[in-house]
């Protein structure tokens, strides 16, 4: 289990999403939903798209390319054309810092474009 630093609490406004580059595990998207923090894979499970470029609507992230949707807390695919769920990561907040807990790389879980 890797503990990956994502960003500072002060750098992520409410209902915002941010992309964190990570070559080892795949890029991670970190979200602030009303003060609750979540992390998912940043790459859409449908096509090559960075979810962090999409819009947060309630607890859904809307992919900027084909407008498929995922439930941020669970990663569940919620809207056409996304059918494969998104990988999620447990999040820990320590003081002003947000971390994701990432299982050692499991290739099958990293979505392919």
């Amino acid at each position: 289990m890797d503990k990956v630093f994502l960003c500072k609490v002060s750098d992520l406004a409410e209902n915002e999403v941010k992309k964190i580059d990570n070559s080892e595990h795949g890029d991670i998207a970190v979200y602030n939903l009303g003060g609750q923090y979540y992390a998912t894979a940043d790459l859409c499970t449908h096509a090559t798209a960075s979810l962090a470029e999409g819009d947060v609507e309630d607890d859904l992230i809307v992919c900027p390319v084909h407008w498929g949707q995922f439930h941020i807390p669970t990663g569940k695919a919620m809207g056409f054309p996304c059918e494969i769920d998104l990988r999620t990561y447990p999040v820990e907040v320590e003081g002003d810092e947000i971390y994701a807990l990432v299982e050692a790389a499991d290739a099958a879980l990293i979505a392919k474009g």
Partner: protein
Amino acid sequence: MSNIIKTVDVTDSLENLSEFCDIENGRISGKIFSDKAIYEQELEKIFARCWLFVAHESQIPKTGDYITTTMGEDEVIVVRQKDGGIKVFLNACPHRGNKVCFAESGSTRGFICNYHGWSFNTAGNLVGQHESGIYEASDFDKSKWGLKEVAQVDSWKGLVFATFDPEAPTLKEYLGPMTWYLDALFDNQEGGTEFAGGCIRSTYECNWKIAAENFVGDILHAGWTHDSAARAMLGGAVAKVSDFEESYSVNWNGHGYEFALDTVGNVAVLGESALNKYVHTIKPSVAERLGEFRSNMVASVSSCTIFPNFSFLAGQNTIRVWQPRGPNKIELFSWVLVNKSAPDDIKEKWRKGAMMTFSPTGVFEMDDGENWEYCTKTSKGKVTGAQDLYIGLGMNTLERQTDLPGNVYKGQLNEANARAYYQHWYDHLNAKSWSEIPDRNVGKAEVE
């Protein structure tokens, strides 16, 4: 930035243009309604150059709301942006040119092309494609391949206009003092106006200028052409315009508004007494807002065209664009305008009244369509089209002593606006750019 549209090359003007249009002598040639070479010149020197009406703000209130329409024969998408602004794009994918939006209106996160899956956000930026990885391998710069954005977009009191020409004057300069008159319909109550219902579309086999010219200043036809329709709706003849003590034809930059000061002559033909009553009820507040003179114009016997193809009737509240589809065909897009502050039942009565009179099944529209189609058809005759047409009514009626803005002519039974319209048409076809268009305005540019 790089998604700004490429302007078309401006070709030379037709050498024999002056044969078709001799305004000083009150004549035009029938050929201007059917000649293919003239039509091609119009697409390039008028429709790719002038400010064209594309939408009413009320059609696209929220982020992502859009409508599709055309500028000349070019299909465009008009879409509300996240920052509240409005952008207008060519409705064509920059990859193979396929149409990217097929609906007439809606609300969306963006536009995805059916062909290769190019996906654009509402700001027109290309955000992805099917198999996007292969583009990256080709050093593809997607920031350069968004939807092509028209050169200028601006709005005036809810009316959104766009132009393909980056050199075009501002919309304010383009409309000039005509806005003073337009206020009588578009700004007579707090809150402004909105469209009631959707876009009504129909086609006519007529030249676009015949329709535009009818609205720029031809009330003369109404008493004759529409006699039976008026009797059906009103139970009597159309108001005899020559009986009006005071009426005007006003123009500027080819736009024209002809009007009487009888307050309700136009709305009366909808046959809904509640609408006449509404106009009378708001009149004192209109007088307070715009002055006595314009409070008499809210729904009076009148018509207007903003050059080249945007027209309306205050009172019937039909708003329309005569979309050119070749020299002998138009697609008419029309809408019904109401005050936002009007009661719901009044809005609904206006919508129905306009449908009864000025829609594809409207009793007045039928009368006009027949005439306009035959004005066009006869001009296709080789010999007939070469003949002169008279356009000389009301020569020497310019009002030099007036406080009213614009080029003001006495009386609405007058072809002064039609002459100014065709003169401006000629001036555009004769010019390679805006700077070559002569300023023929003689009246006041500002309201005193």
